[in-house]
């Protein structure tokens, strides 16, 4: 293998599994370390700079970081990264002084943002301090988009959302709420230098052809619309017996909200097997904790309506089989299953919808009705129009929308300065030794053995009686500190310098997880098999040195390195050293 080029920041970036997996590449270990030092304000600001909504995400993020967490490969459970973010948000001090302070001098450019969700708000936050005049349009009465209309208050208190939305709006954003933009052409005819579309995926899927759909319409609701009606208090109750169709997180929010609006027997019914449901495992657990059974392998056949009143639904039982490598649901042949219901919520997915963009506006759409958007620059075929969030490539999540917002803001800024959109700024990278003394490091190198701490929940009696009472209580400061110490500090990199190495094997002998091997070089596939512990996780890189004096090379398997620093402590010549690696995605401007 060729020697690893550690000067390429992407190499060490990939070692920081959580940060690499995060769409916004938030420097996770950096802020977790600050939490363990009780520096909550600093931890919050690192988050705010990167993901804009730490308080919101600390409660609702889809957590792509946690399945990636190295700790999950070493013991059972990853670090509770998401809930640690909330610890920073809950305990922070005054943060406004650390945010950009307006008013900003006008740079002569006007930007329109359509939709007031996380993507648009991120664009606003990145561009406002640069002097852009930002106009934000949303049909709702407040900013936040789906974060407000879709995420129930018992998961995300309104005050938390308001606070973080207002940090952005206070930068001097011109808001146009209660304003549905109904023509792209009209918008483009105004004097905006760029238009950002962050309108999400606003259309909930329906089951229009299912028998009984029209007859029972009064008690059959589209999940996302129903949730929005609850959020804005147009809907305040639901029948005692409720069926929620669908297996995603929206279905979980629907069923749990139903329990709070009078639903006593609420059931989630899903076509696929339980294990294949799209909902996050913790959301399924929370639903079941609230006495909501999840009935899997049931395909909806018809709504049963008697005398114009919805009575329930009939389902066909199926079983999954694998045929030609594809999973198919095959009817079991058992009689249809009737489940009683006063109301049915359909939460089987959502779609993009752009009725307000005229096809003559100069924006290309593909055959599925989706805009053609460049994955790097977020530019559409119209030079002034950019897309981000769910509206660009379909429904994802908040953190992805934020990441899109940052990139779109960069593009808009480049476009307004007449620079090529492909001229993306390099990441900000810093690599600095943590050596303090003979065996002293500037980071807590001890690896603690604690298992993952669980977040306490409020009493079910209380939370089910009030839609606005937050269920999760969050970590206490002490729990947060203990959980933060579980972090393995993957951003403290093991850096190897060939010409200092005397090949004494001290690092090989001490490494608790057998990561290091000195060996004759070979091709990667062969090398992976020949190491002291075969490196079978090919998603993790091998760190290979240049040839040493004995012609061998040092090979380190990054897979289960604990970043404990023992290799560097036992190295007599400092050929190994621990360097803190900071990687920040550069923002617009």
């Amino acid at each position, binding site marked *: 293998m060729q020697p690893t080029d550690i000067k390429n920041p992407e190499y060490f970036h990939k070692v920081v599994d959580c940060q690499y997996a995060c769409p916004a590449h938030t420097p996770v270990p950096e802020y977790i370390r600050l939490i363990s030092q009780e520096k909550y304000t600093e931890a919050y600001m690192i988050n705010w700079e990167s993901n804009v909504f730490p308080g919101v995400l600390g409660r609702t993020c889809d957590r792509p970081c946690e399945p990636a967490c190295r700790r999950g490969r070493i013991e059972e459970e990853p670090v509770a990264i998401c809930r640690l973010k909330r610890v920073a948000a809950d305990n922070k001090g005054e943060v406004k002084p650390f945010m950009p302070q307006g008013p900003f001098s006008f740079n002569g450019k006007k930007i329109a943002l359509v939709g007031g969700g996380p993507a648009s708000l991120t664009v606003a936050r990145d561009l406002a301090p640069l002097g852009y005049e930002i106009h934000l349009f949303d049909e709702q009465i407040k900013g936040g988009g789906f974060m407000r209309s879709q995420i129930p208050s018992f998961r995300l208190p309104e005050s938390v959302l308001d606070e973080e939305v207002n940090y952005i709006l206070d930068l001097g954003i011109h808001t146009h709420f209660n304003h549905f933009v109904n023509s792209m052409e009209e918008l483009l005819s105004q004097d905006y230098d760029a238009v950002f579309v962050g309108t999400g995926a606003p259309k909930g899927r329906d089951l229009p052809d299912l028998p009984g759909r029209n007859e029972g319409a009064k008690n059959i609701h589209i999940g996302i619309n129903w949730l929005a009606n609850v959020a804005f208090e147009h809907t305040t109750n639901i029948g005692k017996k409720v069926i929620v169709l669908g297996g995603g997180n929206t279905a979980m929010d629907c069923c749990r909200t139903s329990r709070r609006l009078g639903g006593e027997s609420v059931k989630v019914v899903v076509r696929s097997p339980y294990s294949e449901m799209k909902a996050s495992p913790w959301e399924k657990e929370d639903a079941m904790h609230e006495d909501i059974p999840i009935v899997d392998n049931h395909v909806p056949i018809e709504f049963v309506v008697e005398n114009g009143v919805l009575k329930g639904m009939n389902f066909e039982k199926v079983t999954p089989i694998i045929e030609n490598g594809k999973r198919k649901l095959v009817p079991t042949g058992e009689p249809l299953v009737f489940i009683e219901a006063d109301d049915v919520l359909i939460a089987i997915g959502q779609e993009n919808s752009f009725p307000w963009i005229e096809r003559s506006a100069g924006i290309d759409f593909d055959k599925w009705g989706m805009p053609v958007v460049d994955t790097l620059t977020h530019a559409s075929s119209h030079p002034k129009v950019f897309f981000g969030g769910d509206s660009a490539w379909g429904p994802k999540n908040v953190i992805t929308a934020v990441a899109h917002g940052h990139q779109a803001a960069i593009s808009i800024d480049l476009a307004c300065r007449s620079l090529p959109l492909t001229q993306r700024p390099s990441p900000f990278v810093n690599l600095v030794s943590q050596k303090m003394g003979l065996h002293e490091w500037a980071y807590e190198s001890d690896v603690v053995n604690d298992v993952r701490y669980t977040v306490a929940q409020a009493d079910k009696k209380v939370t089910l009686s009030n839609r606005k009472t937050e269920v999760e209580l969050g970590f206490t400061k002490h729990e947060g500190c203990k959980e933060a110490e579980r972090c393995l500090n993957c951003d403290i990199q093991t850096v190897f310098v060939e010409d200092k190495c005397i090949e004494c094997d001290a690092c090989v002998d*001490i490494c608790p997880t057998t990561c290091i091997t000195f060996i004759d070089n070979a091709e990667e596939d062969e090398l992976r098999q020949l190491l002291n512990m075969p490196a079978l996780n090919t998603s993790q890189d091998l760190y290979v040195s240049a040839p040493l004096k004995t012609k061998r090379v040092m090979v380190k398997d990054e897979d289960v390195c*604990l970043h404990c620093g023992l290799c560097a402590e036992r190295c*007599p010549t400092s050929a190994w050293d621990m360097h803190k690696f900071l990687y920040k995605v550069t923002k617009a401007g």
Partner: protein
Amino acid sequence: MTFIKPKFRHPDLPKNKLGYTLSFYEGALSTLCAGCGHDSISAAIIQSAFEMNIEPHKLAKLSGIGCSSKTPTYFLGNSHGFNSVHGRMPSVATGANMANKDLIYLGVSGDGDTASIGMGQFVHVIRRNLKMIYIVMNNGCYGLTKGQDSATADNGSISKAGIVNQFQAIDLCGLAIELGATFVAQSFSGDKKQLIPLIKAAMAHNGFAFINVISPCVTFNNNKGSTKSYDFVRDHLEATGTFDFVPEMEEITTNYESGEKHAIKLHDGSLLQFNKLDNDWDPLDRFSAMKAVHQAREKNEIITGLLYLNQGAMDLHELVNTCDRPLNTLKKEDLCPGNGALANINAGLR
């Protein structure tokens, strides 16, 4: 300073026949200097015990005084241990072995502990062919007292202070062969590929097995001009050949071509495989082994590998004809024949 090794290990660590992973054979975190060759030897011992499927309670590790003799703390934490008086490890090992012949005795000593204060003990334990493994971690200096030349420092070797050693070195392997040791090997701490099979073979040997391991002292004897530095040893290594140890139960898949490869069967059925480089040398011939040692010294080379093996000699228990049961298990009724037997003897003398 880190005093605790994290408890996490590679999740896929293999298990040996007893169901233990390598970590079960580890000891406490070493407090020797970073980069000490002794730590590599400790790691080789851990690996060997793991691969030999040794039940930890069936092994006793014994040592004297010195950096080397601290190391039993750093390996085989679940085995018996005795950190004895300076240079007196062989006596303690002899006593222990006499009392309980069922254990594997692993003695660890240094160049000071063996070649100076313990020389008298060393030569006599060889004479007696005590069944044990005797490893010398040889760094040519007194590391624990700031690096004075030891008795194994080569003539002409330059110390860290820049002083040239005027005295002749004691060649422990040459001495051991001369005195009739039945298993004599030499190796280098930085060459585990060779060291591990040597330790495993020593564990299978029925008699006194001596391994002299050159183990650089990074702090006091790794300077330019030292003949026990990593660089010097690597430049002057002369392996007697590649060498492997095949336990009794394993199927042998290597093909032997006569003249090039040898396989020696040990008394327990395991095999030693040699791939000889030097045709003049025969590890089963004492004169040939002596010659090889002398020739290497003449050529300023460090000869490594299994230098000499004699399987014919009787170990101490056979020599003194002890009973099959370990002596420590004999009870009063086994040892005292009783009044009747005494009366018979007395009657026979009338």
